[in-house]
């Protein structure tokens, strides 16, 4: 099959357009970048800011402590994310149960999502990590577990609502079709509704996980030293803010893979949904 001259012309025109827009984007980025560099480094206080926010010596000095703290963040993140996802899914399923018999279950699940989305996380952590040990019960878990539990119940509430949105986005005809094929309610949920629901809400779920990654550090309220706390201590020791920058860079590096996966999942979902049209 040969390409007509007109088609060739079209291809050349589009290529030219593409090259032009790439060059334009590169040019404007360069201009903006140069302007920013001048605006920041040319400002009267830049030397002082550079010394107190970007001191290479202090960055190297504080890195081990901050990394040590970050290891706590990572462990907390993995455990809390998995538990919160599981809790969220269970609550969402409970909240979408049908039938008058299940009213109390629905009511409790609804109350839970309302309450824990409303209460600030910091207060939940205070209540769990400082309140529960105060009861002096035998076998009270340590503050890591209590702080983690606070994170799980708070994020579980958010994730439950995301899951519920997914479940309710599955068209009723799907349910009707499944039931008319003879599937029980449980089988319908398991094989028809949830697979579609979870796929649809994967991007917002991952998004919440990225948010959780930054919030796990709040367990440091109860005493443990996370990356931000380690940076705070190093900052107080040197009166230099560089350790915060170190922590920020580490957090960005930690978030990058998750953010990339989120973007990829979003793109893939969009492609799939538009595949038929």
């Amino acid at each position, binding site marked *: 099959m040969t390409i007509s001259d007109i088609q060739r012309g079209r291809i050349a025109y589009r290529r030219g357009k593409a090259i032009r827009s790439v060059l334009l*984007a590169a040019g404007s980025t360069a201009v*903006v970048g140069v302007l920013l560099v001048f605006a920041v480094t040319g400002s009267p*206080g830049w030397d002082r800011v550079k010394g107190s926010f970007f001191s290479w010596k202090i960055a190297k000095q504080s890195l081990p402590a901050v990394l040590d703290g970050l290891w706590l963040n990572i462990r907390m993140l993995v455990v809390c994310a998995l538990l919160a996802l599981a809790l969220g899914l269970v609550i969402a399923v409970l909240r979408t149960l049908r039938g008058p018999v299940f009213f109390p279950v629905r009511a409790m699940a609804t109350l839970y999502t309302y309450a824990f989305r409303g209460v600030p996380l910091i207060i939940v952590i205070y209540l769990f990590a400082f309140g529960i*040990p105060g009861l002096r019960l035998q076998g009270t878990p340590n*503050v890591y577990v209590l702080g983690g539990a606070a994170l799980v119940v708070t994020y579980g509430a958010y994730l439950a609502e995301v899951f519920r949105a997914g479940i309710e986005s599955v068209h009723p005809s799907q349910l009707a079709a499944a039931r008319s094929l003879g599937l029980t309610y449980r089988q319908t949920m398991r094989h028809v509704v949830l697979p579609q629901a979870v796929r649809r809400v994967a991007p917002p779920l991952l998004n919440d996980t990225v948010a959780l990654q930054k919030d796990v550090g709040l367990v440091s309220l109860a*005493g443990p030293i996370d990356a931000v706390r380690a940076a705070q*201590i190093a900052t*107080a020791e040197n009166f230099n803010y560089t350790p915060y920058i170190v922590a920020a860079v580490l957090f960005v590096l930690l978030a990058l893979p998750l953010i990339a996966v989120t973007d990829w999942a979003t793109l893939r979902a969009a492609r799939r949904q538009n595949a038929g049209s």
Partner: protein
Amino acid sequence: MATDGPTRSTLAGAGPRLAVMVSRNTLTALGSATLLLTVLAGCAPADDATPSAGGSASASAAACPPGGLATKTTGTLTIGTDNPAYEPWFSDNKPANGKGFESAVAYNVAERLGYPATNVKWVQVPFNNAIAPGPKAFDIDLNQYSITDERKQAVDFSSPYYLVRQTVISTKGSKIAGQTTIAGLKDAKLGAQVGTTSLQAINELIKPNNKAQVFNSNDDAKKALQNGTVDGLVVDLPTAFYMTAAELDNGVIVGQLPQVGVPEQFGIVLDKSSPLTGCVSKAVDQLRQDGTLAVLEKTWLAGTGGAPELTP
């Protein structure tokens, strides 16, 4: 061909999006920079707070005739403190009994200045009034005043008569209550407030096997101690006395740690530009040099006060 469209839109979009991100960060950075500069400016004079800055200049200039200083009442030294006067700085709320660390320091300073105990008069001055600008009802005032630059704007301070020590506190029945050595605290779970000399004391002096627990405030730390999630706290000595006496139901002082970091300093308060500042500073310096202050500290804070010194 099919990728032509998306590629273009992505690239074209990248420029502005990047620009927005960068500029937003710059704004934040500039904002923090301004904040930082303000903080720096506010704290810059902190370097001046050296112990001898109290008024050594005027000390050399002015002579200090014993018992003949320009006091409020000639021949009498009027000393102020608040009511109630707390233990162990005073004793039985009676500053004039010479008992308690600050009462003892006050009488020693008076004696150096040539005023025997009979020529000392105590007046009651609320804590905040003594460091407010304006006329004073006292010649000198001792009430656990930390020397700060803000306060120096309003009043004079003598040389410091006490450098605040870090202290380990706990609750009755805890595994570290009754320990007498620093080594005995190695296995304890200790807490402190973030960014304090107390935290530094844990990490540099005690070096416990368990990582120090760090709290936003002493209130959080206190709660953790009550809950038993930590075995002990490190706080400064005045706080230790207050916490164990007034705030904790069964708090105990385990002991004082050696000096670490840049300690807070207690100074005697005098009226701004008081003619006595130099002489009082000189008297305090002499008391420090001849070891009197160390003895008083041992007697009234470590001994009677109940905050023994921990040995290595």
